[in-house]
């Protein structure tokens, strides 16, 4: 069974104890952000996701989307759930009050996203894509376009898409062919075919706002010749309603491994009317400004799935009776012990738990930086936060989705054969988790982004935003005996990360393929150290609070134990990663192509 209770206690820990929610509340626009408000939002979100979205998850997967004559129907119950979602104000939560949004910060928004992804990833993609379109328009569109589209996207009566991929170009957008021809009235006629468009066509909203990458007639070749356009399914009327049908048609939907309730569409634009967003030939930059937030959101999909996998596995491990504890029966009253007594099952459960809580803490750190980058007025604080989010975005996206996939697999392993058959809904989690490692820039691309762009930027300035706080933390806690058992392994792993960083910086100067060869392992090493830092900080907080914790003592004790587990059983992977990084590209690239 897919089991999920929103981990509200841990979310509060991240928000109020590990980080200080007042940091964000003190920024412009955060005045009303009291803990009471945040708590009530999280509780409402928990209710909605547990009661409305989770029950639709397995059925939506079973039924999938239906395509007929250009029309897409979502699975049973999705439309009602979406209406409730919209009416609950969830689409407006993280949006600008100027367009009807609630202006809540990312640190809150991302927690809600985590709950949505945990309970129904397919559903979450519809509002998720809308939010991406919202961000692109809000940052780059003219006021006129903003007025036309943003209020509708914010209140959720219209939804959005991001149309990048074409049949022959996914990762390499420089190849794209969709054309946009300027018209006398300032609009453009957009013609071309797009594939893999999530939420490209569906029955949840009255209109769909497509953001489309296309080329102007005189555009230079490659990525420098791409512009961004907004192309609605129905042309808006002056009074804000929907008018004539635009020349965009869904020609098919994909049959996929997972996220089956999400409509993945092929779209055909045939002289569709659109308007340019931002400047000519600067479409990719416009897309990339919201990439940090979007990629963090995909990371949260991994986190959400890790959490639901963990909870589902725990429930099963407590009730499934098989074998006896190696040290003698723990429940002689039962025919067998519950499998949670077995070290290997514990290994899996602790791993999932350490992943989920560690990632949640790290997501909180990055989300807070996103808020500071967006809202701070002090330029130096802003730059620091921007650097940090730029650095951590590929790590969060790739690491979280990898760990999320690992966690769903561990969950299936805990279930054994009962996880592999459909009845329990566990294999759905594995299938759903798989896509997150691919879309929004494959994890390979994330790793390249990290080593090729983020690592060398400004002679390592982005790195400073991570390395300095960690280094200062280690230096100032080294003498603390209570933390020694945690700080020592962190310090060693951090040393490995420093060595790997220097190694890549130096070897890449000689040979850029060296950086490419080290990229995936480096990203994972970096991610593990980041989680290690989060665990050390979490443990420090827990250790401080434990003596006066009363009823919460169990929570803090668990934190301390899980922190130790992470430091002792997971973080040491750093050294193996360092070793393979240092071995260089030679064995990877030596085989002649013909030998494959």
């Amino acid at each position, binding site marked *: 069974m897919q089991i999920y209770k929103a981990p509200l206690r841990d979310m509060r820990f991240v928000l109020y104890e590990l980080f200080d929610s007042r940091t964000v509340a003190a920024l412009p626009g955060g005045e009303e952000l009291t803990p009471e408000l945040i708590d009530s939002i999280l509780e409402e979100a928990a209710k909605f996701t547990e009661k409305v979205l989770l029950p639709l998850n397995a059925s939506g997967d079973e039924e999938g989307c239906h395509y007929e004559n250009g029309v897409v129907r979502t699975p049973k119950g999705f439309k009602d759930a979406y209406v409730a979602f919209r009416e609950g104000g969830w689409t407006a939560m993280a949006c600008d009050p100027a367009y009807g949004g609630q202006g809540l910060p990312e640190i809150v928004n991302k927690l809600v996203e985590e709950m949505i992804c945990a309970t129904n990833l397919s559903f979450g993609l519809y509002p998720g894509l809308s939010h991406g379109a919202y961000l692109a328009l809000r940052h780059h569109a003219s006021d006129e376009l903003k007025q036309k589209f943003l209020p509708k996207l914010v209140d959720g009566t219209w939804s959005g898409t991001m149309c990048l991929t074409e049949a022959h170009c996914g990762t390499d957008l420089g190849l794209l062919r969709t054309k946009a021809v300027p018209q006398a009235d300032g609009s453009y006629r957009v013609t071309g075919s797009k594939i893999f468009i999530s939420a490209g066509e569906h029955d949840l909203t009255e209109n769909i706002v497509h953001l489309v990458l296309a080329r102007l007639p005189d555009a230079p070749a490659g990525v420098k010749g791409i512009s961004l356009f907004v192309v609605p399914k129905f042309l808006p009327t002056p009074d804000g309603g929907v008018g004539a049908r635009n020349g965009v048609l869904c020609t098919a939907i994909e049959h996929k491994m997972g996220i089956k309730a999400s409509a993945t569409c092929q779209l055909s634009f045939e002289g569709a009317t659109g308007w340019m967003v931002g400047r000519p030939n600067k479409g990719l930059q416009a897309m990339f400004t919201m990439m940090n937030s979007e990629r963090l959101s995909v990371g949260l999909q991994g986190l959400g799935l890790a959490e639901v996998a963990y909870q589902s596995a725990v429930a099963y491990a407590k009730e499934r009776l098989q074998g006896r504890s190696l040290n003698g029966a723990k429940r002689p009253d039962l025919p067998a012990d519950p499998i949670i007594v077995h070290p290997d099952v514990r290994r899996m459960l602790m791993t999932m738990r350490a992943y989920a809580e560690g990632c949640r803490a790290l997501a909180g750190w990055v989300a807070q930086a996103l808020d500071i980058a967006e809202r701070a007025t002090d330029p*130096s604080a802003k730059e620091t936060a921007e650097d940090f989010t730029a650095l951590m975005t590929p790590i969060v996206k790739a690491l979280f989705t990898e760990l999320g996939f690992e966690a769903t697999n561990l969950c299936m392993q805990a279930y054994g054969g009962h996880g592999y058959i459909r009845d329990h809904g566990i294999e759905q989690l594995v299938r759903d988790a798989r896509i997150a490692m691919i879309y929004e820039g494959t994890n390979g691309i994330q790793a390249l982004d990290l080593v090729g762009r983020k690592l060398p930027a*400004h*002679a*390592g*300035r982005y*790195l*400073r935003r991570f*390395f*300095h706080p*960690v*280094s*200062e933390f280690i230096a100032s806690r080294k003498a603390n005996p209570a933390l020694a058992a945690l700080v020592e392994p962190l310090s060693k792993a951090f040393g490995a990360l*420093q060595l790997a*960083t*220097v190694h890549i*910086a130096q070897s890449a100067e000689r040979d850029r393929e060296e950086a490419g060869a080290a990229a995936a392992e480096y990203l994972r090493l970096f991610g593990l150290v980041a989680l290690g830092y989060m665990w050390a900080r979490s443990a420090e907080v827990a250790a401080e609070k434990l003596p006066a914790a009363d009823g919460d003592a169990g929570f803090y004790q668990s934190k301390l134990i899980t922190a130790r587990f992470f430091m002792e059983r997971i973080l040491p992977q750093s050294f193996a990663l360092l070793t393979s990084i240092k071995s260089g590209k030679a064995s990877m690239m030596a085989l002649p192509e013909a030998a494959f």
Partner: protein
Amino acid sequence: MEGIRKVAVIGAGVMGAGIAAQIANAGIPVLLLDIVPEGAKERNIVATRAIERMRKTEPAPLMSEDAAKLITPGNIEDDLRQVAECDWIIEAIIERLDAKQELYRRLEAVRKRGSAVSSNTSTIPLRALVNGLPETFRRDFLITHFFNPPRYMRLLEIVAGPETAPDIVAAISRFGDIALGKTIVECKDTPGFIANRLGVYWMQVAVLEAIEGGLTVEEADAVMGSPVGIPRTGIFGLIDLVGLDLMPHVNASMARLLPAKDAFHAANRELPLLTKMIAEGYTGRKGKGGFYRLDQSGGKRRKLAIDLITGDYRPEQKPELPELESVKDLRALLSAESKIGRYAWRVLGQTLAYAASLVPEAADDIVRIDEAMRLGYNWKWGPFELLDKIGPDWVADRLAAEGLPVPAMLELARGRKFYRVQNGVPQYLGLDGQYHDIVRPEGVLLLSDIKLRTQPLAKNGSAALWDIGDGVACFEFTSKMNALDGDIIALLEKSIAIVREGFKALVIYNEGENFSVGANLGIALFAANIAAWSEIEKQLVAGQRTYLALKYAPFPVVAAPSGMALGGGCEILLHSAAVQAHAETYAGLVECGVGLVPAWGGCKEMLLRWQNSPALSHGPMPAPIKAFEMISTAQVSRSAAQAKEMLILRPADRITMNRARLLADAKARALELAQNYLPPQPAVLTLPGASGKLALMMAAQNAHKLGKATAHDLVVAEGLANVLSGGECDLVDECDEQSILDLERMNFMRLLRTQPTLARIEHTLETGKPLRN
């Protein structure tokens, strides 16, 4: 003739005054004469003003204030008699034959017998200049053609007439070489001599082809600049610099003097745009602007460039030339099927062919032509070196294929190159079709020659150690911009051991544009960004240890800098037993500029220099104050002479005027010191401690209040004051060197951890400019 002890320069225009300045820079008294303007009360005003102007000119024609004092202004009405005391009289007046000859006649009446007379003419043949003058004049007369600015341009073209006495030519050549630091290129008495003959042709062709090929000025400059080893001003930027009005003038004189069959005539077409621009006052940087100009109207500064077709100014555009990004070698650029590729070929093809046609008409061999273009036009490669890069056969074939004449010299090189190295000796292709050794003048020793014939004694990615003969080793930086890194320190440490075992002395020298720009900031910043503090500290300590070992080595270390010697590069000079500096040495401890303090012993050595300076009053305070003034403001010397004033060089340290003689001079100095060499005694310092720090900080705080120092300047100043005051040391204590080194290290590490310092380093790395934060 005997040595040159006094010189007269007549004509105090830009060239005359600049030549006088360089003579004064060499420590030789010089008389600078010009006319008395009509009705002038102050009769020396022209020369006086010229000297005053030079005190303010950038780049400075004068190397020091002492040099300025060696120039005596005068006028040709009252002071001409004084030339009787001069061994060399240089005429640098207006380019008019009658005026020059009239002056020569007057000079002939007053100058002493056997003194040399030379003209700085660039357009009038020697045979015309001496025509009708007495034999006594003709035997003492030659042309000495300097390039602008005379201090910085290393070329001196010398033209001797058939009657010029060989000892006059030898004396002036020797003086020009050793005292003035110029490379002498002997030319024939042909129009434009060598550099301008080819340079003027190249400029004319480059302009013509740009217009005919439909290039913009930005495009032409982007191609005819760094990609072909020509300064970044390219062609139109260069014309703006020298003045548009000069072109028709020079072209006319060339056209008048060159034989009818010369290729110049075909290229010498009038350019209506140029004529119009000159007529309207757009004569270049000295006028209202030229092909480029700055539009300051409306309170905004806009860079404009002229449209070569319409003649209208429009905003400057950065040209997008994929050819230049993707092209790896010159031949590929010249072969590119685009207007850029065609332009590069049309200009270079014709220019190189023209160069080849100048042997033997204007020069006896190709070496002189290459040298003239490298030193007179700052080309990175001379025309024959360019031909070797492109392939002489390829150029000859393409010329022939396009129906252009192939010069004999180019035919001669068929299947060969113009230069080669035979048994470790560089050779050039002579007119006789044979290769000849390139022979360096006596007293010229080039590391590049030594490297052709020997293997390094030790070497790594950033440095090498060479045996330069007679028991002297030479340590060479080879890193990018000669920035100092861990490899250099490691090899230096190893080299000290090697030299101790098998050599008498060590010279630290290289042939880069700059001796060293200091520590590699990129590596340091990256290490700091990833918080690799212990690693950084380790490097710092290794540097301190190595520099100290350099200072106390049992053999003499002679540093021989040229160009910039900054930060850690300057600290090398400070730790050497002696410095033999090229006159163009720009040394300083610039660490404070990037928010740090010198930490390889720079603070310590400057304290010692000032403490031991007889010019300073006694007591512990004056030395820290002096060092603080210099280091906190990141002062850099504008010449070796100024480095002496700053005590970066000691009074006994010597200066070499000619870059090519630097290594030989340094080696000689090292051997001189090696006789009975004793390393210095360990030094002790008496420093003022906390009260001294307070006094130093008061000055910094005042500067802060006046808005001359930023908040972070104060933080940096405090770090520096910590070091220079001796930290916690007490007035009565004597500090040893190590205690100051420890202070340097601690304060360096502390500053490196501050965000504003990291921001400064990053900004300097990325823009080359300081950040005032």
